[in-house]
């Protein structure tokens, strides 16, 4: 083989790998739409149980992502800006839910927050019920989606030019003001990516929700649970609902990314 041929070989291999990956990852998504007629899509939206599931999914994921952002962003800032003993351990513990099977997450949540769980008695005294309640769905969603935002936000904050943060301090701004006025705007694209990732994860959440909160229409049955519920009896209905979920997820992710690009483009320069 001549040197030139050898040189062309590797790029060709790269493109072949890309073609395989693209085909494999896109085909199932494409199939959902190819197997669903527009009429079925509209029909499925007209079905009250589908509308309930969709509404519940949007509300529960919105609340969950809001909690993740409000608590997770300061945590990510702390981890990105401070060095302390055991920091690596803390980071690893926070990332653990990433690799946890959803069923394990569900069992864990039950053992911790269920009626017989560690904090079950305390929650009961406070009059808080999570299991088989919408609040339980939110808890499950926060648990599985938080690490995505934490990871992305932490690396986004770590990538902010340190001299910007120091300049802000010498210009009279304390840490809180520096965080709000410099760090967050500068890290916005990364933060938005974190929101998009955790929101996507929350929208698709299935196992932990099923085990911890159950699958009751209008209370805990989010779209993925509704799809599973129908799949045995009404495959076409499940397919149509899947298509709706794909569209909603894609629209959410796209709008978050576009929003961040408009606000954050200059921050990257």
């Amino acid at each position, binding site marked *: 083989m001549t040197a030139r041929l050898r040189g062309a070989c590797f790029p060709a291999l790269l493109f072949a790998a890309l073609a395989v990956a693209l085909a494999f990852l896109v085909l199932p998504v494409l199939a959902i739409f190819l197997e669903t007629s527009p009429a079925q899509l509209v029909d499925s939206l007209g079905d009250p149980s589908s509308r309930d599931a969709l509404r519940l999914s949007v509300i529960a994921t919105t609340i969950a992502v809001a909690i993740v952002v409000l608590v997770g962003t300061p945590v990510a800032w702390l981890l990105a800006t401070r060095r302390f003993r055991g920091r690596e351990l803390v980071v690893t513990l926070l990332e653990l839910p990433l690799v946890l099977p959803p069923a394990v997450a569900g069992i864990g949540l039950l053992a911790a927050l269920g009626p017989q769980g560690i904090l079950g008695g305390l929650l009961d005294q406070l009059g808080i019920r999570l299991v088989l309640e919408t609040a339980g769905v939110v808890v499950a969603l926060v648990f599985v989606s938080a690490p995505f935002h934490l990871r992305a936000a932490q690396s986004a904050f770590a990538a902010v*030019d340190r*001299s*910007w943060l*120091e*300049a*802000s*301090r*010498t*210009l*009279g*701004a*304390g840490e809180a003001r520096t965080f709000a*006025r*410099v760090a967050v*705007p*500068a890290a*916005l694209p990364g933060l938005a990516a974190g929101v998009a990732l955790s929101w996507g994860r929350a929208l698709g959440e299935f196992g932990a929700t099923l085990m911890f909160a159950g699958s009751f229409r209008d209370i805990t049955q989010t779209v993925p649970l509704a799809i599973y519920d129908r799949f045995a009896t009404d495959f076409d209905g499940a397919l149509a609902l899947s298509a709706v979920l794909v569209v909603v997820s894609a629209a959410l992710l796209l709008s978050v990314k576009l929003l961040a690009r408009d606000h*954050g483009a*200059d*921050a*990257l*320069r």
Partner: protein
Amino acid sequence: MLSAELRTRVGALELEVALEVPAGACVALAGPSGAGKTTVLRAVAGLVRPDAGRIACGGETWLDTAAGRSLPPERRGCGYLFQDYALFGHLSVWRNVAYGLRGLPRAQRRERALELLERFGVAALADRRPGSLSGGERQRVALARALAARPRALLLDEPLSALDARSRGRAARELVRLLRELDVPVLLVTHDFAEAASLGDEVAVLDGGRIVQQGTAAALAARPASGFVADFTGAAVLTGRVAVRGDGEGALTVVALDGGGEVRSTDAGEGPVAVAVHPWEVTLEPAAAPASGSSASNRLAAEVVSVTEVGNRVRVGLALPQPLTAEVTRDSVRRLALAPGTRVQAVWKAAATRVTPH
């Protein structure tokens, strides 16, 4: 008056520095990279906490490790010009300048920011983003920002090093004018002696974590305290060993150079020494020129290694065989037909020769 006295470790370096900068004066802290210059500046600003020390400015104590007192950077009120200027990329130019102006309504903040930008001749850029500015423009915006909140001291970290050669000269002249107008202490850090000399009222040379000499640039160049300072000020430094000890008065010291040749100096010295001579003290003569009729007592055969134009002068690199530099006019280069390989005599006075322990 800004006074700083601090001791801290930077990697393997033990930094121990004491400095005083009177109000309205500029002290240039100069030294090679890795000498700990920026750490001193950061400690003064409060961005890094030294192991021990005291920093005070205008009667207020900013740091006193013995008393456990350390003001955070936001309460010290230092104007800090960062080496890469550190302009906030997500804010427009005027908002960058107005960042330090708090408690004022928006209209007034903008007005004050525009005033400052006007002073630096960049008011037209007020609504642009820093990303679209040239290096010189950024530097002026960063200076305006550092001065906006009327700082109690101004700290400049390599203020000219991020600029290209063309804009550097102009920026340096503007900076000199600005420093003359300011009535706060200014501490400046640079690795370039020429820059330190043109910007600082005094130059403090930092080497190995300590200030080895402090004084006016002229005094440092004329009387370097060590071979390092001599080298840093731009002098050529030759190494050798004292062959004949002078007394520092009448009798000259004779130094046998490593690699051959002898140099005479009015300075006293003994043992291994560094001999420093500034390029502008060295004249060149044809290899066969007679020594008679010259007051210069140093006359060494040398070979031209390089000929480089520097502004209106020409810098001639020589091999004694130790490297030596002479600065001559273009005319002389033509007259002596100087080119790499030409044999010449390098001539300078014993009085222009500094001898320091090596």
